[in-house]
């Protein structure tokens, strides 16, 4: 390639970049017009929101905290139970999903589609769909969290399995170890950092999700927030939001601590 060609290629690349930028700008402006967005309303909206937060929402009503502890704990229990059950099911399913360990390619494709179905329908949508059969409460919340956990973790674990170094597994097999010894000594040590890393990550996601599934009938803090907003009990709402904040930040801190110590 001579210098002229290089320059030409560079020009085309530059043009391409600008076209992409232009495309993004056009799409954004079109979306803005369609959704009645304007900068005046943005400023107006932020001002209204700030007024609402500072005059109505704050200060939080600390007297209701005893009543909120139960839903707050439910939120934590739901996300933890869902993470554990999800991780166990996903660890099992991922063996059939990973290209390296799947007994049959057709099964692998089926499992991938299956996990993507669970993963790509948001938790809240699962909750809405399941409330019709399971009624309201913690059961629905836990079930929908499990669904999404299985979806996310099956894919993640399958990727971990696919990245396992076959050489190490071969080496242990060569020593004459039986199937279970190969699993324990060759596969498990390579699988476990990914397994725990992703499970902890899932716990964080579940905790966030479980604070909102209550809004559509999944139990926990979301229900308290939703119903108290309808009753104009803003002091209780802000107290519940503070608890959400505490739970989310505490989980993040805790999972970071555990991650540092075991992975």
């Amino acid at each position: 390639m001579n210098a002229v060609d290089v320059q030409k290629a560079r020009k085309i690349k530059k043009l391409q970049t600008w076209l992409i930028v232009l495309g993004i700008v056009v799409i954004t402006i079109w979306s803005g017009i369609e959704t009645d967005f304007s900068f005046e309303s943005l400023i107006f909206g932020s001002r209204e929101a700030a007024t609402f937060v500072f005059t109505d929402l704050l200060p939080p009503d600390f007297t209701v905290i005893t009543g909120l502890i139960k839903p707050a704990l439910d939120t934590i229990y739901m996300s933890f139970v869902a993470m554990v059950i999800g991780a166990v099911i996903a660890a099992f399913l991922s063996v059939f999903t990973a290209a390296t360990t799947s007994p049959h390619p057709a099964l692998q494709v089926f499992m991938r589609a299956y996990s993507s179905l669970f993963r790509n329908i948001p938790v809240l949508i699962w909750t809405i769909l399941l409330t019709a059969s399971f009624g309201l409460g913690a059961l629905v919340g836990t079930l929908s969290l499990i669904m999404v956990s299985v979806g996310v973790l099956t894919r993640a674990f399958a990727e971990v399995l696919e990245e396992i170094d076959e050489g190490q597994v071969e080496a242990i097999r060569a020593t004459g170890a039986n199937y279970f010894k190969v699993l324990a000594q060759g596969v498990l040590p390579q699988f476990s950092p990914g397994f725990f890393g992703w499970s902890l990550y899932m716990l964080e996601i579940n905790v966030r999700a479980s604070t909102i599934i209550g809004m559509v009938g999944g139990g926990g803090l979301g229900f308290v927030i939703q119903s108290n907003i309808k009753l104009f009990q803003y002091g209780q709402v802000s107290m519940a939001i503070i608890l959400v904040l505490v739970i989310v930040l505490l989980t993040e801190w805790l999972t970071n601590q555990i991650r540092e110590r075991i992975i």
Partner: protein
Amino acid sequence: MKGKTMSIDKLSSINIAEANKPRKNNALLIVLILGGIFFFFSLSQLPIDYSKLIEGSAKFLSTLTVMLPPDMTYWREVLLAALESLQVAIVGTVIAIILGLLLSFPAAENLTPHPSIAWGIKGFASFLRAIPTLIWALIFIVAVGMGPFTGILAITVGATGMLIKVFSQSIEEIDEGVIEAMKATGASWTSIVIHGVIPTVLTAFLAWCILRLEGDIAESTILGAVGAGGIGWELMHAMRLYKFDQAFFVALVIFAMVFSVELVTNRLKMRLKTK
């Protein structure tokens, strides 16, 4: 811990790594045991009626038969609502990217005019991030009413919190030498940012923007469930009327939306990686 092993010579650091292994295994064992206990404790504390689990599963199977085939009578409305969700996500993400860009430079420790400013912005960002988007949506509904605009505000707030964090982290990972060298030439703060920092972090920023758009599109599909516009409301509506076949169609559309976004973003991420 890290600093200590770095200062000692290589041989003994290997020894420390070896010595760490059983300790890590012990920690793992403790975490596993505690986790197991907490799991059964949680299970016992949850107000779950197990007879309802069986009953519900049977009921769910029977609703599944009602759900099929999906009812597409209102396909126009559903697709328009899906489009609205997409638009809400795009506008919200773009505003968040602009805000994130503006705030991440003073929030990065190596560029901030003052450490307390960096600390303040980061604290603010983690506050925005820790409150789920749907709760922001509820707050904005009370403040400015229902509709897609509320959705945009909620998406913007959540996404801004995340983008400030990841953008400033990317900036902090820049080689100190680059910034030092530019400072030595007498370059101003803005020209350091424009000529030294932005070209280095551009790829990372783009990857984060794509990831955030992916997340926001998924979020925007659920905003409607509380009345903030988009396709979530269609689902709530159909379920409330017990029109399971219509609800199933809406769910399929949501799945198609989120799934195709995942496909596209995966491809984009691959391209960014190979660049």
